[in-house]
């Protein structure tokens, strides 16, 4: 089921949470809404679910206008950050709930409901725990029950709101992999909200990066990582270092020092962005030269903080942890891949 969000605006008590947002979600894809808190990602998810009403704009499920429908009629599966399991029901009753509240005409027989609930518990690898209550499960298990419960109603779209936000790092990583597997097996159109870029990069087919109630960029993880379209996206996805530079006659300059990068269009001041690991060490005059301010080993790499132009600017670069340059007091380097944005 493809989902089309068309010029949606949402205000809470006159406070704008989303400004004119449009997004096309393809059938069967796994898309991540990524952004810092307050970016409007959860609001967008709740609008798609029908838990909130848009102030303006429409939401289509396929050709059908879903904005006119109650959440009950939209047939979506929603997974909450804090699971929202029914604590007075067993795991099996939780998963069966969505089928049991259907009107008699469309409700499957009792045995059929049980069978399907068991099947789903099998899918989320919780067979044998049917009779337990939510309070008797671990956080990771609870979130898997929540997913099984959402899948039980055969939703047209699966929506997950920070599904792993309340879990510890180890469990997060396991569930991430496992969610991807479930998605590949069931093929549901899935939208999930996260503030964790690593999670989004690893899990999603496409990312929708949001900030301050607007969509900043939509694309595959690679394209968003490699070609960020705004300083915000560059800074938010992955590590970044930034310097104020000047473009003159096709060259980049930091103060009166050329960077040794040529063929640049435009003229005047600009902001240079590059990734700490996308650099090369050079022994030329036309390069960035910095004094090592600090040097720490982080696992397999060495992160070096450099002061440039006196101590006016600080950037970070990554070196292999055993690289001899790590011992020097001064390092010259040149960004291999970089991007220019208008000066701030």
């Amino acid at each position: 089921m493809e989902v089309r969000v068309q010029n949606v605006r949402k205000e809470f008590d006159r406070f704008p949470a989303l400004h004119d947002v449009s997004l096309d979600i393809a059938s069967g894809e796994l898309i991540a809404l990524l952004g810092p808190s307050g970016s409007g990602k959860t609001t967008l998810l709740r609008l798609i679910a029908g838990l909130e009403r848009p102030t303006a704009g429409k939401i289509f499920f396929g050709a059908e206008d879903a904005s006119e429908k109650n959440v009950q009629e939209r047939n979506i599966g929603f997974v909450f950050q804090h699971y929202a399991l029914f604590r007075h029901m067993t795991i099996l009753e939780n998963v069966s709930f969505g089928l049991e509240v259907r009107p008699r005409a469309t409700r499957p027989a009792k045995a059929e409901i049980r069978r399907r609930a068991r099947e789903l518990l099998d899918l989320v690898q919780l067979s044998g725990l049917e009779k337990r209550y939510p309070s008797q499960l671990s956080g990771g298990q609870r979130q898997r029950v929540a997913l099984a419960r959402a899948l039980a109603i055969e939703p047209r779209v699966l929506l997950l709101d920070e599904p792993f936000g309340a879990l510890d790092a180890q469990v997060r990583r396991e569930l991430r992999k496992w969610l991807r597997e479930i998605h590949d097996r069931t093929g549901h159109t899935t939208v999930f909200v996260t503030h964790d870029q690593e999670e989004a990069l690893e899990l999603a087919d496409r990312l929708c990066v949001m900030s301050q109630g607007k969509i900043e960029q939509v694309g595959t993880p690679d394209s968003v990582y490699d070609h960020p379209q705004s300083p915000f996206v560059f800074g938010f996805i992955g590590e970044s270092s930034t310097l104020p530079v000047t473009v003159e006659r096709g060259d980049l300059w930091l103060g009166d020092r050329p960077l040794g990068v040529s063929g640049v269009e435009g003229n005047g001041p600009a902001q240079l962005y590059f990734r700490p690991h996308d650099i090369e060490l050079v022994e030329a005059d036309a390069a960035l030269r910095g004094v090592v301010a600090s040097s720490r080993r982080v696992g397999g790499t060495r992160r070096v903080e450099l002061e440039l132009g006196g101590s006016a600017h600080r950037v970070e670069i990554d070196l292999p942890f055993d690289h001899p340059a790590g011992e020097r007091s001064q390092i010259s380097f040149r960004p291999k891949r970089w991007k220019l944005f208008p000066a701030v």
Partner: protein
Amino acid sequence: MTRLGRFRQPSVIPGFGLTFGFTLTYFSLIILVPLVALVLRSTGLGWNGFWAAALDPRVLAALRTSFVTALIAAGVNVVFGTLIAWVLVRYRFPGRRIFDAMVDLPFALPTAVAGIALTAIYAPNGFIGQIAAQFGIRIAYTPIGITIAMIFIGLPFVVRTIQPILEETSKEVEEASATLGANRFQTISRVLLPSLTPAILTGFALAFARAVGEYGSVIFIAGNIPFVSEIAPLLIVIRLEEFNYAGAAVIATVMLAISFAMLFVLNLIQAWSRRRYGYGS
């Protein structure tokens, strides 16, 4: 201190001997010894004497009046107490905080004051009593009046037990129910109310226990007619005035036994709810 050290874990904080000793002594003198005296006195009649006094028809009638009216009052309070807790937690309306504070009035208002006030309102010439009389209903001086007094004193127990549980029930659970296709009625009847069951039961038991033992607010409105509107605590007072101390002690022992049984049931409910739902009430 060294002797006490066996059953308590060491601590750098001083004062255990003093505070624990005082607590136990004070508790024993004020509560424990008198209660033991009561039980001893009621057993002074011997096995047969005890049961003769306990199964006296007037005693049985008084116990029945107390328990039946208390059950009805607690039942009414469960329905309206849940409703009031819901309204106070979920809705915003002018004067809400004042009404919230007023729920505790029956805790604070002396029972004798409540008793004469309720009588003034519900007596045949009272504000509501008049209206009821037109429909041929007598409220004061009947078991209905007793029930009304018990409703008054029991309400805060129900509201104050349910309110905190309702406050911590997140809206997400209701939203989850809605996304699964449940309509509002199904969400309330199948998700919300069942999750409140332990709190509702606890509130019921507390209101019931309080109503059974209630004296001050009931005797003015009850009419106190033997076999009709005479409550068990009043019969204890009557036995005392007859200097039938042993008879009074027997009724009191029966009532104590029942309220301790209630207390036990209450603890079972909470233990069960904690084990199963992961929260007590």
